[in-house]
């Protein structure tokens, strides 16, 4: 059973999403909120597995609420609902700690998959978003005529990159690949350096752009 909290200041949309979610047998909507502060209270009270929240909300916006939730409840996964498909918004959501990003125009179709994917520890993006990210990335690479930095990575580093982007911890990665934690950490550092990235959110975005994850 996946326990879910829903937050959107638009009541009709929230009610619609709720009734959609409740049709799934393994889903349970444990709380609802109309603004960011209420969402924090609900999460504190119910500690849900997955939070689905709008970005623009009164009192406290979704991004700010998300970063507080993931600090306080590391096991809770957050999916952000947004009207925007641009990478700047995606990156901001990722930096805030969200692991799923859904555009509202296709929310109803992808929400179930998104919740299940995120609950399993992986990242999820609306197909239109990841398509856009990949498309932009490919164009930029072509325009600049730059050698794709992905080619700089060794096969082992590529494996590690995918596992990090999917939200696995160093320990999990070490187990999956049969390596020591230190080796995984070294790989992680090398990957960030080779790709010119600074943190995991950027790395996830990169992985989506490259089509390593979707």
């Amino acid at each position, binding site marked *: 059973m996946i326990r879910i909290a829903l937050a959107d200041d638009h009541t009709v949309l929230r009610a*619609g999403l709720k009734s959609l979610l409740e049709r799934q047998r393994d889903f349970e909507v444990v709380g609802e909120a109309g603004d960011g502060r209420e969402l924090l209270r609900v999460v504190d009270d119910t500690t849900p597995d997955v939070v689905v929240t709008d970005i*623009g909300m009164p009192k406290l916006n979704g991004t700010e609420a998300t970063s507080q939730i993931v600090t306080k409840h590391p096991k809770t996964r957050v999916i952000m609902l947004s*009207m*925007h498909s*641009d990478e*700047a*918004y995606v990156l901001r959501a990722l930096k805030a700690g969200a692991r799923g990003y859904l555009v509202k*125009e296709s929310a109803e179709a992808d929400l179930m998959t998104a919740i299940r994917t995120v609950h399993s520890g992986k990242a999820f993006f609306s197909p239109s978003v990841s398509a856009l990210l990949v498309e*932009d990335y490919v164009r930029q690479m072509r*325009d600049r005529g730059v050698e794709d930095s992905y080619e700089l990575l060794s096969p082992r580093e590529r494996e590690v990159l995918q596992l990090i982007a999917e939200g696995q911890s160093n320990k999990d990665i070490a187990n999956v690949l049969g390596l020591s934690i230190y080796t995984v950490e070294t790989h992680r550092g090398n990957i960030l350096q080779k790709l010119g990235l600074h943190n995991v959110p950027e790395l996830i975005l990169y992985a989506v752009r490259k089509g390593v994850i979707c």
Partner: protein
Amino acid sequence: MRVMEDRTKIIAKPLFSGRKILWVGCVFILAVMCVSTADVIYSLRKTAAKSDAVVSGFRQRSRLLETLRTLMLRSALSPDSDGERAIESSDLPAAHLQANQILEQFGASLGASGDEATQQRLDDLKSSINQYWDSLPIIREQNASHPVTPPPFFRGAERRQIRHIARQIMELNREQQDRAGAQLHAEHDRLQGELLISSLLSLAVVFALIAGISYRIKTTERFAEQQYKDVVQARAELQTFAGRLEQAQEEERRNLSRELHDELGQTMAAALVELSRIESEMPQDTAAKAQLASVKSELEGSMRSIRDIALVLRPSMLDDLGLVPALKWQGREVARRSGLAVRVEADDDCESLPDTYRTCIYRIVQEALHNVVKHASATSVAVSFRSTNETLLLTVEDNGKGFRPASEKGMGLLGIEERVGRLAGLVRVTSSPDKGTTIQVTLPVPAVEREEVR
């Protein structure tokens, strides 16, 4: 309204035309100079004539006096002892007559200039001479009766008389000379006075002219200055109005964009979710379900349109995420729509700019990229935005066909210049055919911002 009031404040145009004053003054000075020159020439001629007359009168009188003296000396000599030079006793009356004639001529030569004292002296001289001449025959006779040793008394008396007359003649002559000198002197003084007066008059007119012209120049300058001020003020006001209009428009766009995006978009999203719920409750494979699916896809399309319209009106990231993400998004959008390679490089610390600056820079880049896509036939364009302590530097550089900035400036560039001008910045467009185009915008960092940085 304020503009209209200020327009009426233009100061009155100067009453006299400066050129007219100048002409009148010059003509006047020329006239004064001509008149005084003519006067001087005339006076000099007159003086010369007068001095000639005085000199010739003096010479004539001197000659007459000399003749008189000679006559008297000759008369004093004895025909017996001095022979030829002495006057014969029989000729004495004739000589007397001649002496009187000489004195008459002398008197006539003095003319009107002879005053009473001179006349008196002349009369004295006349009577002295008459006396002398009357006594002359007696003296001669006495001398003849004592030919060997004439009595010293008579000789002495005779000599005294002659000496007295001679002195009288000399004095008269000297007086005449002095008088002539004084006359010439007076003439000179008069001439000098006239010259002085005419010079002073010219000088006064020149000064008046200078004063008049300086006044006129000053009035004209003040007039021009006031007009210049008015123009500057009007331009500033126009800019302020344009700026306010721009701001109002931007605000309107922001509201409309938000309205579309947040309200309409959310409602449509809710409708979509509702449709999905209905769809899932429907029995499989019915015509209604297919119809519902098509309505859903229509709705999704509409949502995308609304999102696009809202973004064109005013990209929400400009308010949500800041200038740099908005610029980068703009670059990606242009690249996506036009196939142009767009590179956007920007300092992340440009984010704390006031809204007017963010909007201005965003719109400039939008306009510049629009120009590149529409006119430049470029394959790539680079946007760079950097900030220092003092200035913000924005550069948009393309590799297109270029143009001549001096002669073919389009509306887009004018719009950019206007926006930049309102924030006291500078636009530099570098381009020439086949060399691409670079637009460089420099803006002063706003005062508040600069303080925050320090």
